[in-house]
């Protein structure tokens, strides 16, 4: 059959060009693959969910609890269909797998990005792929956020309300922007169809296109080589070919990963729509966004209230905390490859301890995001009597500056310690070798 196909499609050229791509063997190189597998699982489960989901926020009678003839129990159709999906065989499981995989996809992408950053793999010639990766991260987060609005329970309703408020907080064009993005004044009659369109067509389309570009550029430029490749064969591409050696490894990883996700989904429920109930005027106590947006939420919680009027546009704490700050953070991440001034192409993954400042900036950046996420728990910290209303902001603001600074200097200190230990070891082994030679 190979020959039959080859005569017609020249698949041997495909084989030479793509399927023999060398994959370096190192566990940290699996992180990007896990992100890709998550995307595939999300698309498959998403298709199955879309078969039973009803994208509409018109009110329908709740068939599980219809109420009385005088006072019918009306709920949004989207919420009703989420209840129905839960009642299907394995329907709840399907939703959980989709939700868990989405969380894991973001996590794997973030850790993948940390690997790239700490080993200097973003350097010339791979800047373009770092920027595409950044876009992938942003669009993954957007897809995830639109996804958890779709069940349209009270939690989702409150979330989309806040998202609408954030969009509307942009000075000058905010209210037009929010209305255009969410189909009119909140909650517009078309809000769920609109978000459904984003979630299943627009955003996944962008994600797939970016993923394709990410892969093709990676194949064209080759992976950064791990340090062992330098020792084995300097300036040569070392690794196992995609077909057939890397493929079974990937398949095994996929199965293992899918197994873990199923295990998680079986035992840990996510987003119980029945518990939250349909949209209502009663807010949900201690509502939180997903973990990867908690830092924005935390920043909003500790920024004091203010409002500035500039040429008719209102700049408030919400705009600063939820749009300006994340833009600055993302901008800094985009700028990372431009801060590197080396003219030569980088072939080998670098040992992070050889670049202490880069390492320390990275760890203190992570520390900043983590402490801002902790600030997202401000109401819980106050209710738990860890902090009081009076001192919460002060304490959290001090931590926001203190923790990253401490992380920075302790990282530098630890790296210095490691280096001096290593140098001492080298001196000692040299001395031993010299002694042995005598």
């Amino acid at each position: 059959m190979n020959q039959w196909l080859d005569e017609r499609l020249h698949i041997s050229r495909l084989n030479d060009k793509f399927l023999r791509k060398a994959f370096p063997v190192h566990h940290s190189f699996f992180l990007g693959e896990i992100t890709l597998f998550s995307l595939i699982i999300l698309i498959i489960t998403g298709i199955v969910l879309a078969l039973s989901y009803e994208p509409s926020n018109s009110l329908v009678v709740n068939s599980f609890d219809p109420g009385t003839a005088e006072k019918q129990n009306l709920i949004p159709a989207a919420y009703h269909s989420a209840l129905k999906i839960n009642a299907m065989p394995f329907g709840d499981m399907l939703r959980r797998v989709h939700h868990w995989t989405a969380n894991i996809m973001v996590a794997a992408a973030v850790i993948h990005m940390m690997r790239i950053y700490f080993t200097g793999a973003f350097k010339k010639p791979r800047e373009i792929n770092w920027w595409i990766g950044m876009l992938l991260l942003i669009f993954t987060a957007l897809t995830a956020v639109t996804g958890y609005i779709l069940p349209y329970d009270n939690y989702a309703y409150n979330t989309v309300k806040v998202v609408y408020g954030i969009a509307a907080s942009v000075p000058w064009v905010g209210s037009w922007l929010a209305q255009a993005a969410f189909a009119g004044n909140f909650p517009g009659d078309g809000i769920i169809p609109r978000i459904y369109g984003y979630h299943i067509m627009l955003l996944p389309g962008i994600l797939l296109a970016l993923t394709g570009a990410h892969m093709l550029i990676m194949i064209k430029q080759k992976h950064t080589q791990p340090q062992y490749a330098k020792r084995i064969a300097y300036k040569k591409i070392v690794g196992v070919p995609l077909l057939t050696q890397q493929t079974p490894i990937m398949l095994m990883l996929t199965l293992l990963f899918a197994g873990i996700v199923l295990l998680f989904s079986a035992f840990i429920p996510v987003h119980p729509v029945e518990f939250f109930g349909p949209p209502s005027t009663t807010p949900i106590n201690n509502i939180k966004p997903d973990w990867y947006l908690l830092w924005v939420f935390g920043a909003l919680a500790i920024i004091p209230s203010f409002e500035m009027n500039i040429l008719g546009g209102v700049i408030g704490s919400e705009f600063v905390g939820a749009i300006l700050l994340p833009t600055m953070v993302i901008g800094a991440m985009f700028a990372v490859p431009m801060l590197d001034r080396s003219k030569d192409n980088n072939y080998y993954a670098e040992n992070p301890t050889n670049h202490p400042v880069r390492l320390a900036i990275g760890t203190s950046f992570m520390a900043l995001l983590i402490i801002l996420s902790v600030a997202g728990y401000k109401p819980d910290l106050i209710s738990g009597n860890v902090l009081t209303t009076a001192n919460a902001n002060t304490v959290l603001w001090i931590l926001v500056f203190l923790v990253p600074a401490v992380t920075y200097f302790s990282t530098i200190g630890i790296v210095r310690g490691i280096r001096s230990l290593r140098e001492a070891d080298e001196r000692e082994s040299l001395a031993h070798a010299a002694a042995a030679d005598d």
Partner: protein
Amino acid sequence: MTRYRKQDPEITRRRFINAAMGTTATVGIVSLVGVLGTANPVFRLTRDKMPPVEGDILVHASASKEGEPIKISELSEQLVRAWPMGKDKEGNKLIRKGDPNNVLAIYRFPKGQIVAPTHLDATIDGEIVAYSDICTHAGCSVSDDDQQEGQMKCPCHSGQYDPKRGCIVVGGPPPRALAQLPIKQDGEGLVVGGFFLENPYPFTESEWEARKEAVKAQLA
């Protein structure tokens, strides 16, 4: 000889193609922007989306008692959420919940506890006071503070308000106080005495003035 040298055409082939492509791209982008404009549907002010107007009856907003008129005896230092209930064109009862930002917070405090900057003439005997329940920060429904009795806290970003002092911001990110709604007693129940005294979420001052005019014009 120079007389017969080949003349350049008035426009080169390259320039012509560049200009044509530029024009196509411009027209394309402008029409795309036009199409994107349709993403924003027109807002129609229907009666169920109007803010509370004079004469509206305040009814319960909680799911179990929705639509039942609020009685003064049911009020306390615990927040009671209410919808304004007006009338449609035929004169039938109509709860104005088409705009979820119409939800109201009602409190009753012992006499003397409510102080300025609350508009005392808009309360009932300085005891019962009504505010917009929508946080001026991100538009969440504000709840009772679980730590301090008689205070309000928004569950979204923990903005805090003091309902005894005109719902001024006492903590967190909200930019301004909750808007107070003038109310009057009508037997056992509560009726709205007029528009919100300040601009409620999500209106700016000028938008709020425009909305009030639009409502007055439609009801006149």
